[in-house]
């Protein structure tokens, strides 16, 4: 016995793709054909709506709810068919089937909420149960329907799952209606949904009907899912609800921007995907759309402006370099300062032995050499022959500045501990920008008074936590 997915493979054989001419590409991209226009516009609108709704779903940590929901629509389709067929007619009336799908989908979602609120079963298991049991029920109902002797039921499933290419005006209107509802709700209920997703308990203490809001949100998800079923298919609509939102999160830390961006990514994925699928043969639109959205996601994961991997890694690397440079220059300055103080002179740019630098803090030679090489590239080091080193003119100036700022900052943290707390994560390097001029003057006075020739770092290196660390 060949199970169905393998059966599909038995007839595999390769056929070369026919590349479309430029003219055709142009016609498709500019939406000149009525049919393509309908399909492309529809998927675009679906992308917009699901991108919007998906944001809230993602922030509520319920991304997979779309998965549970879309599976839970199956019994509804079968039952709606039975009901409509028994009332006379073919039973394959689109709106009727979609209503059936919505009803069982929503029942499934409510079951998830009820189970998790009334038992020790967690969200994920509740979704898994609803998904599999409802889908099983759907299979039971559908296979009974298919065995019906009167049977015009054949093709009922494919009628529902992902027939992007054969969309008609009715589908477009349906999608637009749903998108409008999603947009309206997101606009009107923006602050309520924010509260729901961020701090449910606080919302409830203020008297917001949290369960009601939850159901409105999931109702929106249900609408998008059900109209999306026939546009991109049962599995792929799940991606539409998750991927654009997750991609948008990498670009912004602001919810409003994230909503806009997610809707845009969804829309563009729909547009690109449907166009590509219209241009090339044997490319099911749903799959292409999902892959385009996934490409957006992967790009955002790496190159996203605020949370992308490259940016965060780069920032971490830069910070490490900056801290390394500051430590090096300050260490050199402090050694010079101590050496000059012995002879009773003010600090000057004298050559110091490399060994002293190593002893100053318990740094590894390799580490220090690397920092030195960098400092040399930045023209902060004049000469370094492996034994001794000297700062350049600009390097010495910089070292003096860094050391002064660092000490000011330390005094500030010690003497003004109460206000300092709100500044701890600020950059010590820019004391002047963070503190008022009066404050800096006051600190400078103290610095002169005590004029600390011996910095506490000689005694306890670990106390020297980099205050200039940017979180």
């Amino acid at each position: 016995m060949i199970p169905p997915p393998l059966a599909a493979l038995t007839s595999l054989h390769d056929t070369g793709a026919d590349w479309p001419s430029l003219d055709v590409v142009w016609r498709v991209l500019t939406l000149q054909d009525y049919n393509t226009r309908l399909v492309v516009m529809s998927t675009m609108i679906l992308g917009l709506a699901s991108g919007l709704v998906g944001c809230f779903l993602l922030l509520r940590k319920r991304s997979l709810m779309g998965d549970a929901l879309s599976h839970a629509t199956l019994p509804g389709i079968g039952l709606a068919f039975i009901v409509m067929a028994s009332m006379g007619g073919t039973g394959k009336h689109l709106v009727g089937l979609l209503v059936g799908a919505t009803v069982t989908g929503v029942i499934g979602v409510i079951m998830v909420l009820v189970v998790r609120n009334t038992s020790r079963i967690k969200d994920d298991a509740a979704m898994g149960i609803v998904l599999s049991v409802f889908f099983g029920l759907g299979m039971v109902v559908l296979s009974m329907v298919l065995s019906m002797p009167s049977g015009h039921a054949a093709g009922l499933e494919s009628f529902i799952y992902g027939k992007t290419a054969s969309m008609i005006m009715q589908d477009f209107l349906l999608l637009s209606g749903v998108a409008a509802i999603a947009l309206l709700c997101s606009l009107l209920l923006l602050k309520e949904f924010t509260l729901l997703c961020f701090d449910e308990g606080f919302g409830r203490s203020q008297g917001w009907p949290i369960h009601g809001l939850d159901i409105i949100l999931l109702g929106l998800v249900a609408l998008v899912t059900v109209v999306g079923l026939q546009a991109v298919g049962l599995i792929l609509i799940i991606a539409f609800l998750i991927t654009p939102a997750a991609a948008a999160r990498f670009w912004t830390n602001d919810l409003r921007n994230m909503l806009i961006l997610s809707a845009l990514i969804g829309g563009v994925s729909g547009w690109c995907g449907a166009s590509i699928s219209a241009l090339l043969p044997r490319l099911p639109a749903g799959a292409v759309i999902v892959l385009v959205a996934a490409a957006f996601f992967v790009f955002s994961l790496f190159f996203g402006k605020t949370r992308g991997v490259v940016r965060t890694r780069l920032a971490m690397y830069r910070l490490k370099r900056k801290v390394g440079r500051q430590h090096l220059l300050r260490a050199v300055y402090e050694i010079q300062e101590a050496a000059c103080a012995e002879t009773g002179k003010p600090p000057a740019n004298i050559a110091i032995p490399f060994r002293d630098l190593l002893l100053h803090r318990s740094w590894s030679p390799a580490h220090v050499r690397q920092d030195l090489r960098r400092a040399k590239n930045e023209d902060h080091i004049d000469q370094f022959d492996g034994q001794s080193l000297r700062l350049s003119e600009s390097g010495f100036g910089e070292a003096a500045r860094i050391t002064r700022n660092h000490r000011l900052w330390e005094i500030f943290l010690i003497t003004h501990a109460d206000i300092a707390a709100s500044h701890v994560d600020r950059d010590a390097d820019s004391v002047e920008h963070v503190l008022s001029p009066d404050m800096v003057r006051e600190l400078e006075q103290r610095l002169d008074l005590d004029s600390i020739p011996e910095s506490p770092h000689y005694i306890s290196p670990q106390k020297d936590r980099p205050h200039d660390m940017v979180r």
Partner: protein
Amino acid sequence: MTWFVDDTWIVIIGALTAIACALPGCFLVLRQMSMMGDAISHAVLPGLAIAFLVTGERASFTMFIGAAVVGVLTAVFTQWISSLGKVDRGASMGIVFTTLFALGLLLIVQAADHVDLDPGCVLYGAIEMTTLDVAWEFQLGETWIEVPRAAMVLGSVALFNLIIVVAFFKELKISAFDPELATTQGINANFMHYLLMTQVAVTTVAAFEVVGSIIVIAMLVTPAATAHLLTDRLGLMLLLSAIIGALAAGLGHLLAIVIPPLIGFDGTTTSGMMAVTTGLLFVLAWLFAPRYGWISRLVSRKDVKSPFSGPLPSD
């Protein structure tokens, strides 16, 4: 209603599936990763397609390997994305499996003659047909026993899972309960995670090929969750979920035979009915479980025993 030898075999195969799934399923539920079975069963599509395109034949074994590899990759990618990009794990699971599914679909349709592949079909299985494919015959007294291939496959998977769970019981338990504690005790929580994922992938793929994946998804989660409502002890939970799953398999097949004629239909799918039956058993436990059931909670909320009915120890 008539009951044939085949019916017995179907129930046995269903029960073996249930046992194979119950073992990793309990850990999935406890680690709050129940959707992994669903994700993997969808994500394996490109594995199947690539295995076929590379070897050019429909040999079960290469396809099994291809699918199992992609199944484990699903878990790996999910982990990467959620740790690299600080994405919620559910969301990253969703992104990974839908993308792989779309990729698989594209591969199949690109190479296939007919475009009209039903995306939903991956979830279908025909446990009823498994008895036709006999792998091994032997004589027991007077009768010939014909063991279906499915029974052999699922029996092996169940055995494989049993061995792993017995061998690593302690480690699996600790890393399900508290991964950080596990790490401090020298247990590699990451290894345990991927071991579990491998178990899930192998189970899903093996069972999916013979009985259809909806049974697997249902059997992974629902009996384990049902058992979770009945006991607090992991060992007992594993045992109970296997029993509940097997019971659901038997009852499910029975219902699939009995119910359709009652309401005027010819017949229905046993796979679906088994999934539904696991749900029915879950609902029973959810309502009536002695300690964690809904009704017992409702009653107990109004009827709390005072812990201070006796004299207070410190008074």
